[in-house]
């Protein structure tokens, strides 16, 4: 337990001192602010363009902007959040394998599994803080602008999008702990996502596969029920557990 907490502390210190934590908070903060801000500014921007549009014969009727507009933006931007966090953490193992920094620690008798576990925990912690930070900002501003921002279905949709991130990150780390290149881990993760996405085109499978968790917006608009969403959530959680176990196993057989 002491070893794990020391290693986790080291990982978190690394996030802070290499400024990764700062970059994550700033970028996710911007994501969070952009969603309601864009929604709020849309009518104003359109009215600015209104005259020139009118000249071209396009008339703009009254545009009603609501919290749903902000959440629409929020779910559209999610893919960027996933790509950013996956890119940021793709090298957590490769960096140590390539530079040889792990050798000093392993030659102290630390189990390799603990090293992998500390990285897994640090990455998931980084994702949790970033994700809920962006969510909180969108929620706060939406509530400020439009009053009722907690639309029905929002919590399930938000948790679903969060779990999709957990699934992607554990998948990436399972590859990363067994490979010596962060780039390969990132590409393979993208490949597996694309595969699941393609399989999801089959109507019988859609509701079971993790990519469905990116469609949370449909819960808010009423185009989907929780029953169409939950199977994917449970499967993504189960896969995340398996992938975490693979991540711990992958480092065991790594020649250093």
């Amino acid at each position, binding site marked *: 337990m002491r070893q794990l907490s020391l290693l986790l502390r080291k990982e978190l210190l690394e996030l802070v*001192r290499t400024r990764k934590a700062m970059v994550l908070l700033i970028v996710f903060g911007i994501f969070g602010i952009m969603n309601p801000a864009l929604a709020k500014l849309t009518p104003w921007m359109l009215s600015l363009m209104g005259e020139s549009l009118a000249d071209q014969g396009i008339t703009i009727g009254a545009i009603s902007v609501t919290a749903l507009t902000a959440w629409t933006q929020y779910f559209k931007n999610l893919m960027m959040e996933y790509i950013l966090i996956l890119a940021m953490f793709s090298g957590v193992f490769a960096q140590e394998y390539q530079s040889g920094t792990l*050798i*000093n620690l392993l*030659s102290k008798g630390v189990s390799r599994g603990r090293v992998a576990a500390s990285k897994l925990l640090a990455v998931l912690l980084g994702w949790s803080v970033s994700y809920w930070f962006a969510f909180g900002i969108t929620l706060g501003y939406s509530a400020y602008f439009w009053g009722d921002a907690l639309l029905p279905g929002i919590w399930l949709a938000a948790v679903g999008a969060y779990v999709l991130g957990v699934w992607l990150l554990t998948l990436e780390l399972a590859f990363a702990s067994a490979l010596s290149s962060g780039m390969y881990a990132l590409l393979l993760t993208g490949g597996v996502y694309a595969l699941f996405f393609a399989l999801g085109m089959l109507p019988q499978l859609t509701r079971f596969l993790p990519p469905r968790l990116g469609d949370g917006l449909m819960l808010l608009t009423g185009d989907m029920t929780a029953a169409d969403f939950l199977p994917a959530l449970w499967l993504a959680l189960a896969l995340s557990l398996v992938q975490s176990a693979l991540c711990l196993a992958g480092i065991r057989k790594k020649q250093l």
Partner: protein
Amino acid sequence: MDVLELTGVTKHFGEREVLKDLSLRVPEGAIYGFIGENGAGKTTTMKIILGLLAADGGEVRICGEKVSYGGTRTNRFVGYLPDVPEFYGYLNPREYLALCGGLAGVAPDALRPRAEELLALVGLTGSASRRIGGFSRGMKQRLGIAQALIHRPKLLICDEPTSALDPAGRKDIIDILRAIRSETTVLFSTHILPDIERVCDQIGLLHGGRLALSGRLEEVRAMHAKSGFVVEFAEEGEAATFLSARAGGVFDTPARLIYPTATRVDMLSAMSQLGSMGLCPLKIEQREPSLESLFMEAAAE
């Protein structure tokens, strides 16, 4: 008791057989010089000892316990200094030693004094609060020794600790190794022979994937000691004069004669002969094999 025991270890990388049936013993308290040319397999051997690489065959025991690949239990007895130790640049030496010591199971209240003691030993007390990212190679090498010793290991393994350093840096490392010899057994790999002669008492020469030569340094020297003596003159004429008066020598250089089969008695008589002939040589000495000549001899076999 042997702290480290390798029996019949083999390893290949693809087609290339790096270690063929390597057996090696390091007795407790020794400073063992592990010699071999570049690419002989020294680092591979050390990584197998640490369980970082899988051996294809054979057995490694540390303090009687078997080493298993991927497992790290036996490493609690071991301190390891890699050839180019790498650190987390965002930590300072104190934080790094606290991390290593904690991971090695040093009790929290003993950790701080031990870290300070080691920082003083390796001369880094003044830089203990600076980030390691800005350290020179020599400083990293010294910090490497400190991290390897933090848990008072029974066996310290140093992989070419002096190879990348300038003469001053090399002397620092050798002095540190001398200072800790009472605390721990040391296995020390290098291809720099003078370093071995300065600090080691046991040697093993790795060549062609097995130990070509091993034992106590003096014994190995004695075993391979060539008899005879060497006389060196200031002028070539003097050497020729002496050779005509005393047969059996061969020219090594024009002013230097070797009497390869002479005994100690022969050497004494040669010295009185020099006196009676009024010849004063630059030097006259018994032939003692240098580590270098042993190395070349074993490598040539």
